[in-house]
């Protein structure tokens, strides 16, 4: 437990104090601010139209502005989280600090899990920044909080999966460039795997179940489904486990 915490804390600090985090956070913030303002204005415009007499209900802010924000955030995470996680193990190998980890009285599992939590923590920090937009909106327009939180729970779990995948990519190579590219490819594969599902094939339900997007949609719709939560947690566990195997195998070369 202590070893996991020690590694997680060190790496989280390294991630959050790295200029890269601020570049990424800054870019995301610019994008979020721009798109959020635009969709808010659009929403206001359309609400005014619907507010004419004879119309029953106007557009719902949740389904338009907030959902768009969350989809954008998810899309950004696919590209941005591998850039955060790329250094987690690749950098240790490149700088030879890996030697310190592998000769310390800690297990490969503790290394993998500690690194995962560090990456996840940084991802949650980014998600936290994006949450400020819908929260600020609540100051002026009231809407139910439930779906917002289920969507963010989903986002944090999905971000966990991206982080685990990125960590695994980082374990495979010494090169930071390769690490980020691999992480990106794995993430995109995970996200778009449902495209290959087709319709009516015997494997369609299986492929759909394996698709990250399919599960995330449920969360956005305001449903915290047990099977989706289990799926995402298993995906995280799988990739942390694969990372552990790679770390462990470095002893046998």
């Amino acid at each position, binding site marked *: 437990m202590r070893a996991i915490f020690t590694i997680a804390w060190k790496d989280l600090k390294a991630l959050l104090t*790295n200029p890269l985090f601020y570049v990424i956070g800054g870019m995301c913030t610019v994008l979020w601010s721009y798109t959020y303002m635009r969709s808010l204005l659009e929403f206001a415009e359309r609400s005014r139209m619907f507010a004419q007499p004879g119309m029953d209900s106007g557009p719902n802010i949740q389904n338009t502005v907030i959902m768009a924000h969350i989809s954008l955030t998810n899309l950004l995470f696919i590209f941005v989280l591998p850039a955060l996680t790329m250094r987690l193990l690749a950098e240790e190998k490149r700088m030879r600090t890996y030697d310190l980890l*592998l*000769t*310390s009285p800690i297990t490969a599992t503790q290394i993998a899990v500690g690194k995962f939590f560090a990456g996840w923590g940084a991802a949650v920090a980014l998600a936290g920044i994006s949450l400020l937009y819908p929260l600020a909106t609540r100051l002026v327009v009231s809407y139910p909080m439930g779906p917002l939180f289920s969507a963010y729970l989903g986002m944090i779990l999905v971000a966990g999966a991206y982080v685990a995948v990125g960590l695994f990519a980082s374990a495979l190579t010494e090169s930071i460039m390769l690490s980020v590219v691999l992480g990106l490819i794995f993430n995109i594969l995970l996200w778009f795997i449902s495209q290959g599902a087709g319709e009516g094939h015997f494997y369609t339900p299986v492929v759909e179940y394996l698709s990250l997007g399919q599960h995330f949609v449920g969360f956005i719709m305001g449903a915290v489904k047990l099977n989706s939560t289990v799926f995402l947690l298993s995906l995280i566990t799988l990739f942390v486990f694969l990372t552990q195997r790679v770390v462990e195998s*470095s002893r046998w*070369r």
Partner: protein
Amino acid sequence: MIEVRELSKHYGERLAINALNFSVKKGEVVGFLGPNGAGKSTTMKIITGYMAPSSGSVTVAGFDVFEDPIEVKRRIGYLPETPPVYHDMYVGDYLRFVANLKGCDRTRLTGLVNSALEKTGLQDVRGRLIGNLSKGFKQRVGLAQALVSDPEILILDEPTVGLDPKQVAEMRQLIRTLKGQHTIVLSTHILPEVQASCDKVIIINSGKIVAENSLEGLSKQMSSGGGHSISVRVRRNQEVIVRGLSSVPGVRATTNMGNFIEVQTDGDETTVERVAGYVVQQGAGLLELRVQALALEDIFIKLTSTETAH
């Protein structure tokens, strides 16, 4: 403290070390000496549990490195060839991180970090970023890292490589001060390092141990049967003495070196006595007479070059 048995390691087809056997006793300072590529780092990496051997076994303080890696790693402080430092960390934070990794008692952390800083003379830079330190200081931080958990065993892989002469001297001084507090194994490809710091030397070449002995023992071992050389300095009649000495029983050859005479003998002490007696008897004005055992340098070259010949 450390027992190495029939240790071998292949990197693919390449045999890096071949059936090594040696042991290190508690409190000893052992120099692991060999030319580049001899297999020193490989052996150390296996002892520290960094990687597994192809065959053979290592026990440290009674624990097998592969069955109880955690117990072994708890007892070892390791300085790899490249100091394993994070350039974006502060010296003090880094040492605290390492002490935490090593599982040191939480209440002692601050004390341990302070004492490692003090031993390595790093107090003044504890608040500096490691990335901004000079190579010599990074190496010291690497040593402080190995020391911070106050381990029973220190394994130092070429601790002075790449340092300038002043830094080398400081590093050697530092290692000398650690003597007695830890069992130390240090590797080097340069001889003075061993002479400066070690009790015992293991010479390794092309993955095999070619000699294992104390420093004096090694010199003796090599010179026995090989003979001594005596250098003699006289005030007068150098030419006559050179010619005369060659007929003294036990003397194999004499050479006039200009400033002194080099006499090769059979290595017997009575020969030394006869040589001294002859020079005095001739009234040549004996200024100096020195018996030279084979220098460690020569031993090293002899051992490592004969091995690589095939």
